[in-house]
Each structure stands twice: as structure tokens, then as C-alpha cells.
């Protein structure tokens, strides 16, 4: 795994790799053997024709992923499997750890899966106290050494028999021979007991056949068959790029993959699993079967005009085998998780600009990888395209004038807002509401009933210290949004208290801008797209597990609109999708992290009504978490019929149609009053502004609070 911070460090890593004489020799022998054997491996086969067919079939499948996924689900579920969909890497890990928890699993055996490497699944599960044992020999060896793979097919190619013997001596507590055959037999016996005692098996898959809901898995060692048979629970983690229409396409890939990978006409085993099979270890007599599909940027890649062909990859590893650079430095220095030419490309999309910025420089454009790719991917061209994007840092060099005004003069904008605070005083008097705000976003619309600006914006109060644990389990970027940054910083500050000093690292990137929703609403799409690109460039989705916002409007805009706004720019659209997948609202995040529990039970419960922001319940599709969170926090949640009705703010709507807006607000206020609630809680600062204004004007007996304040502040 290449993780250098800068090019200088990376060069140092490369120099070290060059000095590793055993690895140099091993890779050199391999490169020569592979090159010499390749023609014989395809003897009797129309290689070019096969490559073309695989490329065409994969492209066709990628263009109808949604349909294939639906079909697969339907078939697999009819056959007794449960199918899950994970948007991001961390979501896939969460789903799998939840399956383990729900089924009381503690010991997990795993067969090889690059997809699980991609999500760092082992790490995640081990952090949660699960025992995870890799059972592929090479993967077991590197797991014991605490390393990542150095080749996609031969993960331990960088190690000598002596190193393996020393390692096995440590693991078994008995002196081991250096004879390879004997070492393999030791692994056979040591791992057999792990299969017996495991309650969950995790595998990857090479094929997901939509027509029948079948998984296809290739292996040589036979561990896949034990992993998928012996434990009572089986979870397969599968990239959605493995979906193909019928068994025919699987057989087609199967003709090329092993030949190109290891020179075998076929692997020793190909395992085809459909639904839940009989299982003696399972109480029900049937396997507890789960299939977790991982997107993690793939569906956006599939739609990209230039990069979609990267999804043709069948992970044969050949593009590394022939690469003159790989041959010298090996996979730890020539990949982040995915290795070789395809690794240079996928790292950018799956793991972010930062992980790829040094790697992408390291290509001779020699075309050897292109010539050998069994899926016909034009790897060198894609490497050049990624390089361009890395150079630009994900930011567009030229901004449209309006976005440019907001962003380039961001300090000035802040200053304007701040000076507005002083200018407003005569107007608002002692009330925390102001009448006029610098109209940058809103042009000529008169902004009424806006609260006063905070004395000190959030950005000036932010202190990263409590949010920088030494070994964070999650890395979270905070998107503050303008309204909470400058008007309601207390919402952010009180919510953040919940996350401090624990296992979560929170990063606040100061250069982040407005989410762009106001511009989008004004029809300024180009400017909105620029702001989107700016924010994605500032907070690389590859660097974070979540992008957390306390504002439902920012959240739904970033989740829903960013991918559309940036869809037309090659590569950028994919990053927007990756960014969008990671955006999460406050309530969902707190629930997911298991936080927010009431410290003590209260004799008399505070009654809390809820207002569901449009941008949360419909925009982001989040419905249950806030209500469950209120209960978890010790409130008596009181439901009312108007919960999901708009509060009437609607961005600038309330300024265009104040009467309608007011009527909607009245209705909401009346419904809340009827519940007898002590407080009205919501998840969006815009809604807080509108509802609080309404409650105050109508002298309602309840307080309006943002969820963050409600669950951390004093109960009434």
C-alpha cells in the first residue's frame, strides 16, 4: 500500500523497493516466465476475438446495471438469499458487521476478495472485536504479517520461503521447515480448524449472474468452497461491476481470466452458488446467506463517457505482470490497494486524489498493459486522463463570475456578513432577528425574519483538538453550511460535543464554500456546479468515511444535485457521486454511531414533536433515525399528522409568496400545539429559522430546537 504524503517520500519508498533483492529477483523471474508463457496459455483460442467479446459484454452489462441488479435481487431472494446494497465502503462494512452481530457470529473465515481489501473490511471487523482469518494461503501470510497484498492474484509474491517459515514458526509456536510443500501442509491443518470453528464465512465473487441470481467464484486452493460451506452464515461482498446478464457471459470471462492471470486454462475450482443452500451448521437447516453489493463509485463510473471501461476489469492482475515499473518495485510501491495499471486508475476513484497523486506520476506510457489486458481496457489513456484531473486537484481552474464572486472573495463575503451584524443592530433592536442580510445569494429578494448573525461564526470557534483521536475508527469531514456557520454556530457546537474525545476524527476544512443550493435555486447552474467542484476538491471523498452536515438542505443538495451538476465532466461526475454517497445527516450519523443515549432516565419526560425537513425525509430519504434518536435521547416523542409537511420556507419561496408560506406555517404550528409538545425538534437550520419565527410570533408554548441542541442541551 503506497501512502506517501509527497513525491519526495514516494521516491524514497521506490528507492527502498529497488534495494529489496529478493523481491527484485522474484518479480523479474515472474515477468520473464509470464511473458514467455503467455502465447502458449492462449493456444487454440482466438485471443483477440475473446478480448473483444469480453469488453463488449462487460460494457453492455455496465450500461444496464440497474436492471441487472433488480433482476439479480429478485432471483437471489426468491432462492433464499438476502441482498443488500452498500453505497460506500464504510456502509458495506457496517452492513457486514451488523449481519455478524444479528447472528451472534464472532469467528469469521474469509476467502480472497479484492473488494474487501478495497473497503478495509478486516480492519473494520477486527476493530469491533471479531476474529477474522484469511484462508487463502497468500492472504493468510500477509495478514499474519500485517501487510496488504503486493499482487492482485499472488498477494505474497514478495516473500521468500524463509520468511514464511519464520512466520509459521511464530504462529504455531513450533520450529518449521523451509520446505515449501511442508509449509503448505502446515497451513492446511492450521486453517482447517478455523473453518470448523467459524460461524461466518465471507467471500468475494467474480460473477453475479442476473438471470439466475447466481454467484460465481474462481479459486485454486479450495478455501472458497470451505468458506462458503462450513459456517452457518455466508456473506458475499461483491462489486456491482460483477453483474452480468447470463451464465454465458460468465463462461466467456472464465475462458480469459485464468489464462491471462496464471496461465491456467481454468482454475482448479469454480464455485456457483444460488440462494441459500442446505447447511447442517445452521439451526434452520439452510445457510444464512447474504449478498452485499458494493457501489463505492461504480455506478457513476459506469455512466462516465471516458472511464466506464475501467469497470470491465476482471482482476486478472496481468497489467502488473507486464509493467516494467511493477517488475522493479512490486505492488506495495505500485498501488494503493488495487495494483498495477488498473490500480493507478481505480485508486483515484475509489480511494481519492490524495492516495493517487504520487502513483499516477509513475507511468511510462509504454502501452504494455494495454496490450495484455484481457478486457481490452485502454489503460494508458485512462491513466493520462486521471493524471490531468489529479493535476487540477479536482478544482476547475476557471470559475463562473457569480461563484467566483462568492468563492474568490470568500473572506470578503464573510466580512460582509460580519459587518452586516453591526449594520443590522438598529433594525433588530434587542431581538435576535434581523431584517436585512447582504443579498449576495438572494439578489433583490428581500429577506425577512432572518435571525441575527452570530457574534462569532463557527469557523472562528472551531477547535480540532477534541476531535483528533490517535486511532480514529471513522474520519469525518464536517460540512458546516452558511446558515449554521454564520447564524447558528451553537447548533454545530452542541452537536459536536457528542462526538468529542471518542473514536471519531472530525475534520473541518476551512476553505469549504457555500453548498451552492441558493445559486442552484436561482437557476445559476454553472455557478452551482463550480461551487460543487470546489467543495469536492476541498474535501476529497477518498479521505473520509462520512461527510457530515447538520443542515438537511445542504445535505440533500450535495447528495442529489452534485452528481447531476457535474455529470457532464469526465471523471468529475464520478467524484461527485463518491462525495454524494458519503454525505450523511446529523441524526442518521448519531444513530449509526450508537450515540445520543440519555444519561439518566427522567421521571417526567419532555414531550418532543418533530418536524421532518423536506430535504431530509424526501430529499435524503431519511425518515426513522430522527424519531428513534429522540426516544433514545430520553424524550417522549409525540407524533402529529403534519410532520412531513413543508414548513413553508422553501428557500426564497417565502419571500415571493409570503401569504401561502404563512398559512402553511400556521397549520404546522397548530398541529404541533395540539400534541402538547414542550419542544419542536427538526434537523435543518432553515426550518429552525422558519419555525422559531412562527412560534415566537404566535406566542406558542413550545421551543424550537435543532436536533443537535435537543439531544445535547438541557431538557426543559
Amino acid at each position, binding site marked *: 500500500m503506497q501512502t506517501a504524503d509527497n513525491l519526495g517520500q514516494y521516491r524514497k519508498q521506490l528507492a527502498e523497493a529497488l534495494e529489496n533483492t529478493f523481491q527484485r529477483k*522474484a518479480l523479474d523471474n*515472474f515477468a520473464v516466465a509470464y511473458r514467455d508463457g503467455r502465447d502458449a496459455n492462449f493456444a487454440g483460442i482466438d485471443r483477440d476475438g475473446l478480448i473483444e467479446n469480453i469488453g463488449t459484454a462487460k460494457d453492455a452489462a455496465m450500461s444496464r446495471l440497474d436492471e441487472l441488479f433488480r433482476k439479480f435481487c429478485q432471483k437471489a431472494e426468491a*432462492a433464499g438469499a438476502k441482498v443488500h446494497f452498500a453505497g460506500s465502503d464504510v456502509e458495506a462494512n457496517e452492513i457486514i458487521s451488523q449481519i455478524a452481530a444479528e447472528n451472534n457470529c464472532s469467528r469469521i473465515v474469509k476467502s480472497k476478495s479484492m473488494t474487501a481489501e478495497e473497503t478495509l473490511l478486516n480492519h473494520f471487523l477486527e476493530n469491533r472485536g471479531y476474529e477474522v482469518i484469511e484462508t487463502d*494461503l*497468500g492472504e493468510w501470510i500477509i495478514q499474519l504479517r500485517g501487510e496488504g497484498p503486493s499482487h492482485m492474484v*499472488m*498477494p505474497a509474491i514478495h*516473500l521468500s*520461503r524463509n520468511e*514464511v517459515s519464520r512466520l509459521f514458526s511464530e504462529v*504455531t509456536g*513450533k520450529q518449521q521447515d523451509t520446505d*515449501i*510443500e*511442508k*509449509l*503448505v*501442509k*502446515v*497451513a*492446511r*491443518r*492450521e*486453517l*482447517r*480448524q478455523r*473453518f*470448523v470453528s467459524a460461524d461466518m464465512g465471507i467471500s468475494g465473487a467474480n460473477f453475479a*449472474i442476473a*438471470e*439466475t441470481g*447466481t454467484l460465481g467464484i474462481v479459486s*485454486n*486452493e*479450495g*478455501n472458497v*468452497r470451505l468458506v462458503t*460451506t*462450513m459456517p452457518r452464515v455466508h456473506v458475499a461482498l461483491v462489486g456491482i461491476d460483477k453483474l452480468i446478464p*447470463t*451464465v*454465458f457471459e460468465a*463462461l466467456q470471462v*472464465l475462458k480469459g481470466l485464468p489464462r491471462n492471470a496464471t496461465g*491456467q*486454462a*481454468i482454475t*482448479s*475450482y*469454480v*464455485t*456457483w*452458488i*444460488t*440462494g*441459500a*443452500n*442446505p*447447511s*447442517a451448521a445452521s439451526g434452520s437447516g439452510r445457510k444464512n446467506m447474504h449478498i452485499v453489493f458494493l457501489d463505492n463509485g461504480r455506478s457513476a463510473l459506469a455512466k462516465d463517457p471516458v472511464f466506464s471501461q475501467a469497470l470491465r476489469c476482471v482482476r486478472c492482475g496481468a497489467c502488473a505482470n507486464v509493467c516494467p515499473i511493477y517488475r522493479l518495485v512490486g505492488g506495495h510501491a505500485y498501488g494503493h490497494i488495487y495494483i498495477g495499471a488498473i490500480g493507478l486508475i481505480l485508486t483515484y476513484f475509489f480511494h481519492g486524489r490524495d492516495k493517487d497523486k504520487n502513483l499516477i506520476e509513475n507511468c511510462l506510457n509504454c502501452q504494455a498493459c494495454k496490450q495484455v489486458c484481457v478486457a481490452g481496457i485502454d489503460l494508458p489513456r485512462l491513466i493520462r486522463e486521471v493524471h490531468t484531473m489529479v493535476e487540477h486537484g479536482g478544482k476547475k481552474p476557471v470559475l463562473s463570475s457569480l461563484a467566483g464572486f462568492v468563492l474568490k472573495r470568500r473572506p470578503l463575503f464573510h466580512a460582509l456578513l460580519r459587518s452586516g451584524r453591526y449594520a443590522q443592530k438598529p433594525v433588530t433592536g434587542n431581538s435576535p432577528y434581523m431584517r436585512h442580510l447582504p443579498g449576495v445569494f438572494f439578489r433583490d429578494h428581500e429577506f425577512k425574519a432572518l435571525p441575527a448573525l452570530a457574534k462569532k461564526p463557527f469557523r472562528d470557534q472551531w477547535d480540532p483538538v477534541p476531535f483528533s483521536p490517535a486511532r480514529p475508527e471513522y474520519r469525518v469531514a464536517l460540512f458546516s453550511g452558511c446558515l449554521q456557520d454564520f447564524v447558528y454556530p451553537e447548533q454545530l457546537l452542541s452537536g459536536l460535543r457528542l462526538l468529542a474525545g471518542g473514536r471519531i476524527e472530525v475534520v473541518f476544512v476551512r476553505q469549504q464554500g457555500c453548498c451552492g443550493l441558493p445559486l442552484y435555486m436561482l437557476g445559476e447552474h454553472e455557478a452551482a456546479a463550480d461551487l460543487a467542484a470546489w467543495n469536492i476538491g476541498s474535501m476529497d471523498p477518498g479521505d473520509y468515511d462520512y461527510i457530515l452536515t447538520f443542515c438537511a438542505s445542504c445535505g440533500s443538495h450535495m447528495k442529489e444535485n452534485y452528481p447531476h451538476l457535474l455529470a457532464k465532466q469526465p471523471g468529475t461526475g464520478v467524484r461527485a457521486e463518491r462525495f454524494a454517497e458519503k454525505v450523511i445527516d446529523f441524526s442518521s450519523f448519531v444513530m449509526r454511531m450508537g450515540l445520543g443515549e440519555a444519561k439518566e432516565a427522567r421521571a417526567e419526560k419532555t414531550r418532543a414533536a418533530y418536524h421532518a425537513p423536506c430535504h431530509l425525509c424526501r430529499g435524503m430519504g431519511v425518515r426513522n433515525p430522527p424519531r428513534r434518536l429522540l426516544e433514545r435521547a430520553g424524550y417522549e416523542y409525540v407524533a402529529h399528522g403534519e410532520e412531513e409537511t413543508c414548513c413553508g420556507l422553501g428557500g426564497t419561496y417565502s419571500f415571493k409568496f409570503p401569504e401561502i408560506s404563512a398559512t402553511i406555517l400556521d397549520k404546522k404550528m397548530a398541529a404541533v400545539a395540539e400534541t402538547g409538545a414542550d419542544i419542536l425538534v427538526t434537523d435543518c437550520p432553515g426550518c429552525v429559522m422558519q419555525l422559531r419565527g412562527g412560534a415566537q410570533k404566535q406566542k406558542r408554548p413550545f421551543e424550537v430546537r435543532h436536533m443537535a441542541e435537543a439531544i445535547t442541551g438541557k431538557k426543559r
Partner: protein
Amino acid sequence: MNRSERTEQFTQKARAVSATVKTVATMDDALAYTVDVCAQKQACAILASGCEHALSDPAEELCGLKQWEKLIAAPNLEDRDTESLISLCRQAGIGLIEGGLAAYAGGIDVGLSLADFAISETGTLVINCPDEDLRLATMISEVHVAVLNSGDIYADSYDVADKLAGFFAKSDYTAFITGASRTADIERVLTLGVHGPLDLHVLIIDGQPSS
């Protein structure tokens, strides 16, 4: 390709991945062969499968779970063949198990299975094995003996696509097996018998009509 060409190609390709391929006349011959293979092999130790090696204590214990009697597992035979096999095993002093294989994870000497069909292009056996015992017989045995009718050998994997789709139409587990379990993970040295069988024997019954 005609049947004998397919049989020929299958034999050649399977041998190329170190399977033993033999032609036998009848199922009874196949049963006798299987018992013979088991009788000639020494229980566990001779195959260098680990028991004489230095193992950690839990792995050692699992090995001890295995009865020191030799065992054949044959879960999917016809009743008549099972009876013949029982009497052959009795004569040879070998235990026969037909079910509950999961309890024998420490190792079974020989697993006997019937292959559904085969692909000659790659020397591949296709075994439909949603039945867990059948699956395990082909996984945890040290020697896997598979019986195949020559009429069930197809030239190319595409020729069996429809049959596979038929298997996959309900919950299912199907295995392609080509040679013994293998690895090249240490210094790219090919080694047989990592997690699955150390040895694969294919017995082709010739002259029978396709099943």
C-alpha cells in the same frame, strides 16, 4: 468432436493438471478401484498432510478427532452401489460414511462422487452438489475419486450453459473441479493439496448411454 475424441481430450487435459484418469467398465469396477485406492493409502500420515508435522495445539486436537480407521465417504450413490461398497469396505476394514460429513472435518481418506458431466476443453468435472454432504466429500477428503460417464463429456463450456442455467433455476451449489487443490503462493512453486483434496482420480465408465 465425437465421443471418443472428447474422452481423449478430457483425459489429456485432466492429466495435464495432475489428475489420474482411468477407464473402467462398470460401476462395480469403480467401487473396487475406490476401495483399493483407500486400502493402499496410509491413513492421514503418509500423505504428508500434516499430522507428522509440528502443528499448534488446537490444530493437533482436530487431527486427533479423526478416527484412526480409514474412511471412505460416498454420499450420492444409488442404493445398490452403496450396498456393494459397504461389503467391499467391510472386507478391507475401512469405514464408510454416507452422511453427516461435517463431523469429519479433520479429514476423510477418500471421497467418492458421481460427476454430472464434464468439459473436455479444460478437463473439468461439473458436480451439482446442493447436498452438503456431497459437497463436503469433494472438499475435505484427501483423495477425491469421481465417476464420470463418457457420454456426459462435452467439448466446450458453452455447450453446458443451458444445463448450468437449469441447475441455477432454484437454490443451488454447483462445482467445477479441475485437478487437485493447488497453490503457488509461496515463491510461485506449484504445490498440490492446500485446502481441498491432494489427489483427484477420475474414473470414466465407457460405453454407457448419456444419463
